[in-house]
């Protein structure tokens, strides 16, 4: 006798369903219309992300669970999904000009970006170790391909291959950790895991080993030290819009996943993982600050900068409190805006139709392009954490959380590292404003770039005037995570 099963509730997963269906429809459109349709496919992909974002915001947000407990939508998921969708959509819009100029206009690019975004949304909503892994793998696989998208370029191919090999290794570690955790507890469901582990008593050592493997895999995905080796090479080798994409959306999704895994199933084991996160966070901040000093390639510099920023974001996680979570969530929000803005400038570093990537190519930008130099200056000051710009508040909230959690050493080292890090951000400003001008960059700047640049600069500059909605949103998201 066949058993009848109810169809799972699809409403919470509506944005994901939309993205999946749109990705397949756009694939068909592209295949039938050829590469000439890339622009159409790209705009439709952006529209799909906007529609998905609309349904994320209007959809359920009070901890609904579906697909037999594998998929959860709470305030945290909603907040992070909106960030991921904004990051992906902006990265896609910023890629238009580059794809056209470099002869990379192939319709698979937007389709792969949509699929990567789908993977990120699934990561953010994962409520089961298996769902976590599949979301992560969907995202990573699409990222490996777009890293190697400029296949006639040796560096791009190398970046894709390097990313793939190391990413596969980290997935292996993550899976090994998951299997150990499953072996010890007999559950993969986050709710069941959290119920099983919150009872107190002695923690089996095998579980701790599994947790360490899991953290290693996740640390690779957020490119935290000591799993950061791939970042500079991949950021430098990948086509610039892909680097811009890597620097925002996947990082936000991976940090979101990190927060959820640490707080939801392993929230009762804070004492077990806190020291690991503290060490990883300190190492990332210090390496990000010191290694970037010697870089002359701006993409490589941004890679080290992103390693450092992940370190700061993890300070909030290390605190293990609702305040810390709020700090990390807010950090990723501001990080998204600053990085999108910076990459909008980098994507306009073009001379005689060819991209240039050296930081000395920015020399004299203040005279040839005063507005662009001003925007870049704002982003650099903000990335360095200078008040009253947005980046300062990002750092302020994570460090406050660390101090309140009595992690004084972490907070002090973090502040020192950000002083060292300020050096290379200020160096760029010095080059732009005080060095003898080199040749002028190509004009004109595309209108969509101008809008993104202006919006990011205004947000970064005036965040201090009206931070309340972002604080409230991050607070609600954090409270959903810490129960």
């Amino acid at each position, binding site marked *: 006798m066949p058993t009848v099963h109810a169809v799972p509730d699809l409403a919470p997963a509506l944005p994901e369903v939309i993205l999946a269906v749109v990705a397949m429809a756009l694939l068909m459109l592209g295949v039938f219309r050829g590469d000439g349709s890339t622009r159409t496919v790209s705009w439709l992909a952006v529209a799909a992300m906007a529609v998905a974002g609309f349904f994320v915001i209007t959809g359920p947000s009070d901890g609904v669970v579906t697909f037999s407990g594998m998929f959860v939508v709470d305030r945290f998921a909603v907040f992070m999904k909106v960030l991921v969708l904004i990051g992906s959509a902006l990265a896609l819009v910023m890629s238009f000009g580059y794809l056209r100029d470099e002869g990379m206009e192939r319709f*698979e690019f937007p389709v792969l970006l949509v699929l990567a975004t789908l993977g990120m949304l699934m990561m953010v909503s994962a409520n089961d170790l298996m769902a976590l892994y599949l979301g992560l793998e969907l995202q990573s696989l699409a990222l490996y391909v777009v890293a190697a998208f400029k296949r006639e370029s040796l560096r791009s191919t190398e970046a894709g291959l390097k990313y793939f090999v190391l990413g596969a290794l980290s997935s292996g570690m993550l899976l090994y950790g998951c299997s150990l955790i499953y072996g010890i507890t007999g559950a993969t469901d986050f709710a069941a895991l959290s119920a099983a582990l919150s009872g107190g008593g002695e923690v089996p050592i095998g579980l701790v080993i599994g947790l360490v493997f899991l953290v290693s895999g996740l640390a690779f995905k957020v490119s935290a030290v000591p799993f950061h080796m791939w970042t500079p090479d991949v950021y430098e080798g990948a086509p610039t819009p892909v680097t811009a994409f890597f620097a925002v959306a996947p990082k936000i999704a991976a940090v979101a996943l990190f927060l959820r895994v640490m707080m939801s199933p392993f929230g009762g084991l804070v004492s077990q993982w806190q020291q690991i996160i503290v060490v990883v966070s300190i190492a990332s901040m210090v390496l990000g600050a010191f290694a970037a000093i010697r870089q002359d390639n701006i993409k490589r510099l941004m890679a080290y900068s992103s390693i450092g920023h992940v370190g700061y974001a993890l300070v909030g996680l290390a605190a293990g409190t609702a305040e810390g979570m709020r700090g990390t969530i807010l950090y990723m929000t501001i990080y998204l805006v600053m990085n999108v803005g910076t990459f909008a400038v980098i994507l306009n570093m073009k001379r005689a139709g060819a991209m240039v990537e050296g930081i000395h190519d920015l020399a004299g930008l203040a005279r040839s392009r005063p507005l662009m130099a001003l925007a870049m200056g704002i982003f650099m000051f903000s990335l360095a954490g200078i008040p009253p710009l947005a980046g300062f508040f990002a750092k302020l909230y994570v460090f406050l959380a660390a101090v309140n959690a009595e992690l004084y050493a972490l907070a002090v080292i973090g502040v020192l590292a950000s002083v060292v890090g300020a050096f290379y951000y200020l160096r760029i400003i010095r080059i732009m404003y005080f060095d003898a001008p080199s040749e002028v960059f190509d004009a004109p700047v595309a209108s969509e770039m101008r809008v993104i640049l202006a919006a990011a600069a205004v947000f970064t500059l005036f965040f201090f005037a009206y931070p309340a909605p972002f604080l409230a949103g991050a607070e609600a998201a954090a409270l959903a995570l810490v129960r």
Partner: protein
Amino acid sequence: MIVQTLTFCLLAAVTLASGVMVISARNPVHSVLFLILAFFNSAGLFVLMGAEFLAMIMVIVYVGAVAVLFLFVVMMLDINFVELRQGFLQYLPIGGLVGLIMLVELLLVLGGWAIRPPAGVVAAAEPAVAGVSNTEALGSLLYTRYVYLFQAAGMVLLVAMIGAIVLTLRTRAGVRKQSISRQVSRRRDEAVEVKEVAPGSGI
């Protein structure tokens, strides 16, 4: 029972031995053939566990598709594997030392620890339901409880497919392709030319 144990020992021993041969055989084609042997034996192990569906999948997918694909790649790429292995002996001492240290560390960590579920933890895998075959049980779980994972895995495979095409497909100019419409619309006078040949002179 004794037969089962003996079969297990035999299959496991052959699996391990062929696994070692995969990495130590000099000829890469031999390596792949040992890999196939290892797959067959692990399929046997699955049968022994009562997982006949997985055993068949193992044979069909791994032996039938993956291993044959490897064989093709190995034969076509023509890599000089002897050259690749040249540094092996040079790095053996230090590599062995690192491996040994890690083994000792793992034994020290795990030595005093017995695998047992702590209190309050969910019981492990449910026993097989009587009267339901392996395939049926898998199917009824895969399409109900795990439908989300099933669909997600489908998306992952779609990405893999797109990726393989994006990274390798090249449109080459000057390739002669069959055009059926042109073939069909061809007329007799376009294709055949009648020449008057004078006797005894040739063309």
